[in-house]
């Protein structure tokens, strides 16, 4: 499984969707979750950088899991997602800071078709507030943007979450330039 994490970790960094340290990924398997370690580099993942934690109760591995573990847990408990990618994608961050709206409406056809509106949520890193807001918004969206922070995208597999995350970034990039043209 770590090879899938490695594959999409490399893609995230390679295509400028985030920098090496800024993001995390997880996959749900039954009542367990595999998640990237806190402090791991997304473009240098190996089997030691993925840890297994329980979905419903704390485990000792919580302390080395991504600091956004609480957010991943809440999303899995409240949605049908089986994979999550969070990345500090630059255009999503910029656009969320440029607007006072609670959502971004894409202007490109692909994103309108796939994403509809993209919610902008708030909450501090690794906080219960962020976990609640993300899980709530992802009940009926494929991705959300945390204001000034980054994108969370979900899917049934990591690849689907990756596609959704790319779609958000593409939508934000197009809209950013459109708004300024």
């Amino acid at each position, binding site marked *: 499984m770590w090879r899938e994490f490695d594959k999409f970790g490399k893609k995230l960094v390679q295509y400028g969707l985030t920098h090496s340290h800024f993001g995390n990924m997880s996959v749900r398997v039954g009542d367990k979750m595999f998640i990237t370690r806190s*402090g*791991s580099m997304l473009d240098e993942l190996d089997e030691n950088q993925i840890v297994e934690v329980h979905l419903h109760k704390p485990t*000792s591995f919580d*302390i*080395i899991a991504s600091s956004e573990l609480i957010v991943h847990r809440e999303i899995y408990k409240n949605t049908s997602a089986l994979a999550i990618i969070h990345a500090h994608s630059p255009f999503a961050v910029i656009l969320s800071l440029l607007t006072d709206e609670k959502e971004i409406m894409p202007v490109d056809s692909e994103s309108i078709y796939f994403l509809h509106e993209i919610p902008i949520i708030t909450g501090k890193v*690794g906080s219960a507030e962020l976990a609640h807001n993300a899980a709530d918004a992802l009940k009926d969206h494929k991705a959300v943007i945390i204001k000034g922070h980054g994108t969370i995208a979900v899917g049934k597999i990591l690849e689907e979450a990756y596609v959704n995350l790319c779609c958000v970034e593409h939508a934000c990039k197009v809209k950013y330039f459109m708004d300024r043209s």
Partner: protein
Amino acid sequence: MKWYGWAGKLVDIDLSHRRIQVIPLELDMMRLYLGGRGLGVHLVYNELTSRTDPLSGDNLLVFAAGPLTGTPVPTTGRFACVSKSPLTGTILDSNCGGRFGPYLKFAGYDAIVVRGASRIPVYIRIADDVVLIEDARSLWGKNVRDTTTALKGYGSVLCIGTAGERLVRFANIMNDNTSALGRGGLGAVMGSKNLKAIVVNGSNRPNVYDANLLQHRNADITRLLIASPVSSKGLRVYGTPVLMNLINYMKVLPIANFRRSTSPHAYELSGERIHERFGVKLTPCYGCPIACKREIKPSGVEVPEYETLAILGTSCEVTNLNAIIEANHLCNDYGMDTISCGATIACYAELNNLQLDPETLISLVHKIGTRKDVGDELAEGAHRYAKKMGHPELSMDVKGLELPGYDPRGVLGMALGYATSNRGGCHTRAYIVGMEIFGKPKLIHRLSWVGKPNLVALLQNIFAAVDSTVMCKFALFSVSEEEIANALSAVTGVDFTSEDFIQVGERIWNLERLFNLREGFTKLDDMLPERFFQEDTDVKRISKSEFMSALLEYYRARDWTKDGIPTHDKLQTLSIAGEYSHVA
């Protein structure tokens, strides 16, 4: 002069002559050493002569709180004790939670210096200005719980059990039953002075220079403690046993005296399992929001720490949780270090080719605590025992101090930290586990030497300063030297930058090194047991040539010679150049 943070005086007690003196402290010295470990190291270095017998009246015991002890800064309800170790012959500092440290400050003292030896058993009672040396003959022969019960009406109790009376070389001093001044035999030093206990109480609070600013500084620290998964999700939820599954997963759990490094039984000893099996009550140290200490309900028996589970448990190949809980409780009651006790038993088991069962483990703890039968030899510690039996290679120690619960083959920063530790095989001097295991503040590759020598030196400096404030090391999983320096400035009114703070630690570290050099230790003592260079576990053995290169790089990072001796220039920078003549 009005003091802030510090009380500004210490009480000096000569047990040989039953003389008690209150001595004022100088601000310039406190700037240089802060308090706690630093003050103790300064006093012990200057007052002891080379080759002092640690179990004679000539040895000194310094109990010292820090400028933050007893203030509202989180996790600072701690104090240190410094002396010459009867186990290692090195300088030894130990650090303890409980309530004694704050109460000492409330009584109006930064430190207690105990010198000489009494002819009869005595205890010291301090209540503000009243300092008494009392007859303790009726307490002699009692263990820690009974002694504490007898004296707790007078305040916070620091005492030895019968292990300290019998000069077990790894005897502890215990605070309020379960908090330990552990490692290296401070309890034996206390026993050699015929000093059974010190009880302290006080009615004053330390002055704070800028209470409003401190509120902001404390808010910063609290926010970071809450945000860090290690403090708020790990230690807070499961205590230090949270480490058991993690360390086993990383294949660095000591098994069978470090012959293996993973166990299929680790889960049985884990924080998760302990909480499944028992009702648990948190028993935090004074002023600590992390609250890693806990006891089992309703018995009140203490939950063993991770190090105990690993060394008294898996390293002895005993994985019966009830047996380890009992052995831990016995060690605390006799007043013995659970790491050294477990490591010595593990060494004994390997040397005699024994497979220990729970009953034998408990029986051996009793024998060591009472120095009966083989317990008399084991009470000397693994190093002396293995050497006496003709197999020194089977003692897993550095400088005579038995190694704790991290197999250095899988954590190379820890390997260098063990080897260069001034008090011997100890994980808390550099405490690089934060980075190599938890990834805090940054995950680093635990099987690489790259950058480690510099990092180990830096962390040793930081923790020496932290031990002098006196703050809990666990807070450093969340806060940095910057937040601590800020809090220190707000409390004392003395401006400390993070660089000043680290330099205090570096000064202390170098002075400790000078003490050890004066005692005859050399670079050859900065070495790990040969097993780690010769044998693989699930992790490969350490390359000795790479280790030696890292050691040299470490000396360079410290501005020491290639023989590990601080240079005159370095000591001058640290304002301790006057000590250079001892090593030149």
